[in-house]
């Protein structure tokens, strides 16, 4: 459980980018998507999420704009840029590689079932 949470946190930026690949979104909605996709088991802390937003914005992977909600606070919508799409693909590749490596290591370490 905590390993999964760590891994998710380690991939916050790619997860956000992947979420924005589907459609423009804002903080709470992205977190809701994560909740839904993980069957209500995981969500990101607000602080983690917004730190990642700022970093992605600075890198030019996402752009932000204000919604026009009336009465009360406005939502800040994010959309992915061309650069962001590339970064997302790159992040996916890296994850696939890591997954393959861990798979192999755990198999070789023989804690998996022996056939």
């Amino acid at each position: 459980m905590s390993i999964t949470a760590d891994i998710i946190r380690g991939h916050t930026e790619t997860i956000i980018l992947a979420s924005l690949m589907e459609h423009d979104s804002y903080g709470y909605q992205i977190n809701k998507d994560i909740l839904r996709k993980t069957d209500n088991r995981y969500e990101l802390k607000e602080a983690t999420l917004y730190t990642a937003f700022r970093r992605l914005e600075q890198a030019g992977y996402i752009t932000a704009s204000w919604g026009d909600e009336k009465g009360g606070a406005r939502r800040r919508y994010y959309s992915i840029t061309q650069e962001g799409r590339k970064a997302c693909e790159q992040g996916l590749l890296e994850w696939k590689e890591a997954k393959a490596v861990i798979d192999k290591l755990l198999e070789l370490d023989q804690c998996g079932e022996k056939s």
Partner: protein
Amino acid sequence: MDNLRIRKYMDQLFENAPINRRTLELKEELIANALEKYNDLTLRGYGEDEAFQLVIGSIGDVRQLFAEMGTDDDYSQAYYLQWAREAQERKAALTAVSAGLFLLAGAVLVISLLLYWYNVKFIYIHGQNLTLLGIVIALLICIVPVSLLVYAHKIQPPVELADYTAKQAALNSESRKQRRRRFKQIKGSLEGMMWLLIVIFYFIISFTTQAWYITWIIFLGGAAVECLLDALTKIFFPIDKE
């Protein structure tokens, strides 16, 4: 609705945050999302306290965000540049107003000298007194553009970005609107005093010179000063676009 409670909590959270546009925007973003989450939770049947606790609990450590915003200056840089540009424009406006006033003073001077010449040449009607009055008024008018120019000269964008940030923090402690209102109050009392003085001045001059047919021009001068004050209000306290 428990909106106030969440807003209050955010206020506390941001109490020690560096004051700049980034943190203000972050706060608004956080509030919008927190409120939506809170509403969702209460709709799903959570009690008010429970929903509030859940919302607060999911925020995490915001200080790490502040830390980043304190050091990252890219954003502030843009605002600094904008501010510098505005300062430049204000300077230009002040210079233009000063030039106009100098012209006015010059015109008054020319008119009074012409009056003098006219009086000497043709009929003598308290010409000397009027000329003297004209010269005095011209000099008095000059006081305003000179002080404006001195002030304009002092408008310099702070050399360091840090100066600017410090200045911003100070400015933020009193909102623009408040300052505008305060200035308007001061302006109002100044104008009241000015008109009173003008009336007194008018009678003194008129009785001493007996030139009633022309001394009413003093009131035009008063109107000019009032227009000037209005222009200054607009330069220094532009109406917020919001």
